[in-house]
Structures are given as C-alpha cells and as structure tokens.
C-alpha cells in the first residue's frame, strides 16, 4: 500500500527529532485506521500519527510505499527498514537509513551525517538496500556500511565511506575530503566525470594507494552499478549518458593502506 503524509506545521506539539517510526515496511502494510493510530513517541508520552501528519491514501502499490511530502528534518528516518520504498521531499536529519537491511530510500533534499550508518550501538551500518540523495550529505556517509548502495548527487562532508566494511557509495562530486578512511572493503565511485568532462585531478590522499587506469568495460560490475543508477534516474539534473558510461575510464586507488588495500576508490574519467 502507498501512503502520503504531510507535516502539520501548526500543531503545538514539541518538535519531533526521532523519525525512526517512519518505516514503509511496518507502516504501509496496515489499514488507514491502524496507520493513523500509529503511536509516535515524544518524550515520555506518545501521540497519534494523524495528530502530527495529514494522511493521504492508502493507494494500491506492489510494494509498501511511504511518501513524505513535508517534514521537519528528522533523524533516523528509515532506520532498520527491511523492504519497501520511502521517498522524502524535504531535508532529513542524521542517520538516514541507519542499519537498514533492504528496500529503497530516496531523499530529494539534503541529508545529515552518517547516512546508512549504524543504528545506536550496532557495529554495522546498513546491510542492504539503496539510499539515493539528490541534495548534499553530511559527514561520514556510509559509516560502517556492510552492503547496499548509497548515492549522493550533491556535496559530501568529511570522509564518505569512513570505516566502511563493504558496499558501494556513488558520488557526483570530486571535492572529497579523505574518502574511505579505514575502509576495509567496498567501493567509492566518483562519477563527476560523467556529468562534467573536465579531467579531474587524482585524489591526493595518503591513506590510498594509487593504481592505474582501466577502461570502464574492464570492470563490468561497475557498469551494473551505473545501469542501476540510470534506471533510478539519478541524478535528476543530469542523467548519466550510457554511451559515455561505457567508454569511460576508471582511475583506481585502493585503500585504506592500514586495512590491506582491499577497498577501492574509483574516479571516472571521460
């Protein structure tokens, strides 16, 4: 089922901070009455969801689908979600998709720190699923990420892929501040070259070992990632060009040096 919610800005409740209740896999499988009655914890008490949000739906949908039209920037949106689709039209807070294991999150605004990171004291970040952000993201995107895909179309804070275990992070910026510090495995893709043909400078980072350059076709698995991003129409402003994607080259850097260089930072050159 698909539900659409709008934040009621005129309500007199305390400001919401924690958004972990907004999970399509649990919320969008119940009828409207149960959906509206979902308790939202605020301090020591709780309020009904329909006191805070105006609700539209349900509409038929093959997969649980929650569309958030308007919201304050909540933390922990989509935390622990296992399947379904969450689309947010506004900025979101920190820890978007914390420890999520599956499903799809799309944020049309900006996101805070530790996108796809661990929830609470978990030792793992997201273990599956996809997070696509059309705006900017804060520091440590993909912190302790284990599997899945994070794509950030805008700018990116400190060390994306910080301590990542595995998985894929796709970025459209080349202005990277120490990507993949202490990363164990996994891939960080810098796709600036696909939307802007100017040749990017090599990533100067002492924790990465420089490799050479290979043709994009030499790594078909990365073509699968590009294809997926294209299917998802990411980013909206500059669609990736399939012909250029297959003709492009990858500049390979591997790291972190202290983690046996099993991770990779691939810079796309066209």
């Amino acid at each position, binding site marked *: 089922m698909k539900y659409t919610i709008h934040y009621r800005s005129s309500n007199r409740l305390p400001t919401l901070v924690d958004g972990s209740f907004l999970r399509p896999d649990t919320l969008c499988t119940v009828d409207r009455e149960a959906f509206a009655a979902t308790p939202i914890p605020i301090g020591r008490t709780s309020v009904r969801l329909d006191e805070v949000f105006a609700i539209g739906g349900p509409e038929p949908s093959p997969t649980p689908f929650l569309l958030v039209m308007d919201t304050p920037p909540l933390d922990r949106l989509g935390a622990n979600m296992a399947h379904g689709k969450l689309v947010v039209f506004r900025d979101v807070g920190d820890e978007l998709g914390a420890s999520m294991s599956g499903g799809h999150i799309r944020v049309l605004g900006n996101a805070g720190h530790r996108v796809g990171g661990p929830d609470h004291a978990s030792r793992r970040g997201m273990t599956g699923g996809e997070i696509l952000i059309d705006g900017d993201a804060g520091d440590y995107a993909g912190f302790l990420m284990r599997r899945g895909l994070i794509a950030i179309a805008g700018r990116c804070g400190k060390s994306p892929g910080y301590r990542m275990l595995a998985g*894929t992070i796709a970025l459209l910026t080349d202005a990277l501040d120490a990507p993949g510090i202490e990363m164990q*495995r996994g891939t960080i893709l810098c796709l600036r070259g696909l939307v802007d043909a100017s040749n990017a400078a090599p990533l100067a980072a002492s924790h990465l070992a420089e490799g050479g350059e290979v043709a994009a076709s030499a790594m078909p*698995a990365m073509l699968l990632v590009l294809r997926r991003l294209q299917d998802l129409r990411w980013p909206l402003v500059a669609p990736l060009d399939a012909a250029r994607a297959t003709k492009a080259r990858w500049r390979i850097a591997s790291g972190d040096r202290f983690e046996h260089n099993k991770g990779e930072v691939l810079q796309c050159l066209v």
Partner: protein
Amino acid sequence: MQVNGVIIEDTFAEAFRMWASRLIVTAIDEEWVRIAATTVSGYGTSVIGCDAEVGVERWLSPEETPDGRPGVSLLLFSFNADGLRKAVPNRTGQCLMTCPTTAVYDGLPYAAITPGDEAARIDLGKRLRFFGDGHQKSKQVVVVAAQPSAISDQPSAILAARRFWRVPVMDGEFTCEETVGAVKAIAGGNILVCGRDQAGTLKATRRAVEAIAPMPDVIAPFPGGIVRSGSKVGSRYKGMFASTNDEYCPTLRGRSKSKLREGVGCVYEIVINGLTAAAISRAMRTAISAACECDIIAVSAGNYGGKLGKFHFKLHEVMA
C-alpha cells in the same frame, strides 16, 4: 495434410524431460560476443555424447543486457540439475572466463529463489571465484532483467540485489553471477525436412532455422541448427545406445525398410530444445511453415514409437 503443396506426415516428434539454465553473456562488442557464444556452445550438440546441449537463444542489444554492452542469451540443457552443476561452471570457466572482455549473468534470476522440485540454483561465480586466489571481490547490485520469456521471470515486487563475483584477470575483471537458475525443460522436439537433393533440402532447412532464430525460450543445438545424422534407439552392436536412422537414409532405399516418399533424396533434421512445450510447439510450427516455402516434398518428425519421451508433438496438431 499439405502446406504450400508440401506433405505434412501424420506423425509426431517425441521429446523428453531435461533441465535448462540460461546464461546472458556480454562482451565489449558483437564480434567478441559471437566468439564467446561459439566457443561455449562447442561440443554441445547431444547429451548422447556431450555434457550438455548448448545453443544461442537470442542475440541481445545493449539495451537488453544487464551491463549495457552487446550480449547473447544461451540455453544449456542437461538430463538433470546435477548435470548442469557440472556443465555450467566447467563451460563457463573454460570458454567464457578465458574469452576477452566477457561477463556472465543469470538469465533465470527469479527461478528457485526457494529451491524445489521444479527449479534449482546452480553455483557458478561461487565456484569460479577461487580462480581469483584471494583477490576476488563480490558486488551486490539490483539488476532488473529486461528479457521477455515464457518462464515466469516476472520481477518480484521487492527487488532483491543480485550478487556478482569479480575475478581479476589480465584484461580487467571477469564478472560472473554467483548462482544461476535451472528449471525443468523439454528437449528433443524436432522436424525432418524431406527434399529432393542436398542443396535444395539444405536451403529449406536453413530457412527454417533462420525463422526460429529470434524466437525466445528455444534453441537448435546442432551445427548451424541442423542434424544430418538422425538416430534411432539401439544398434546391432553391443554398447551402442543410438545408431543411424536407416529408415530415412536415401542410400539404403531398397536395402532396408524405408520411410522415404517417392522422389526424396535427402533428409535434414532440426532438433528443438525449449523451456516449455508451448515454446517448442510454436518453434516447430514456424520452422515447418518456413521450410514449406521452399521446394521440398514432405515434412516428418522423429519418434521412437512413443516409448522414450513423454512429450509428443503431433505435426497435424502443431500446424492446426
């Protein structure tokens, strides 16, 4: 029954149960796709003597493949899932991993996500990854199959990520799906094209093979899709399971019992393996219609009196 003046014999093709996998192979250009397809389907004509029956199902445009490069869809048939467990990794390892620029994907990704009697999963990248000697990596990506097929390859509502192994090789990486699907299928659908001489019969048979080439869910695994040594079950020699189909040999007319009509001097067979009975029936109809546009005398079919296979394709019903 006659089609275009060609006699359609009142007989049936006898086919039997086999298991099939579908591999999607891509490469840097069409030339290397063709080389990969030719190599991996080599020595893959009949399970009488080969580990699998292998053929090209369809050539795929870049839009139809998972990685956006030109590709081919191949079907591999074996007697059971265990046969495919040996043949698919062996052929992939020797013929596709070695071939420049290729990548191998599962063409039945939604088959047997929960294994059962009707379908199974075959370890492919899971076995071949060890060639990477510790440098192999895996990558999980959501890939939506774009290929139309009768086998229920409906993308499920929740798209699960598929796992691929990346084995470092001297031209980059060999990318290979971790497991591939295997489903119950049917092999041995066939038609016999009976003409006057080699040149004319070959022309008609080739036209029939060309007509079924773009059809989904079927392959014609023999050389160029055509068999000239049609067989019967058994032999006068011990240890031979199959021997020449003497009833259709033009040089034996008069010496042994013949099924050849007056004027027939050459017979070619097209063997059709398919994922479903409907796909085989459709392909037989297309092949017969195409052959009957040429100057031939009759179209027949090979069977073993109904004793060997449980699938019977009656020519008159196929053409009805």
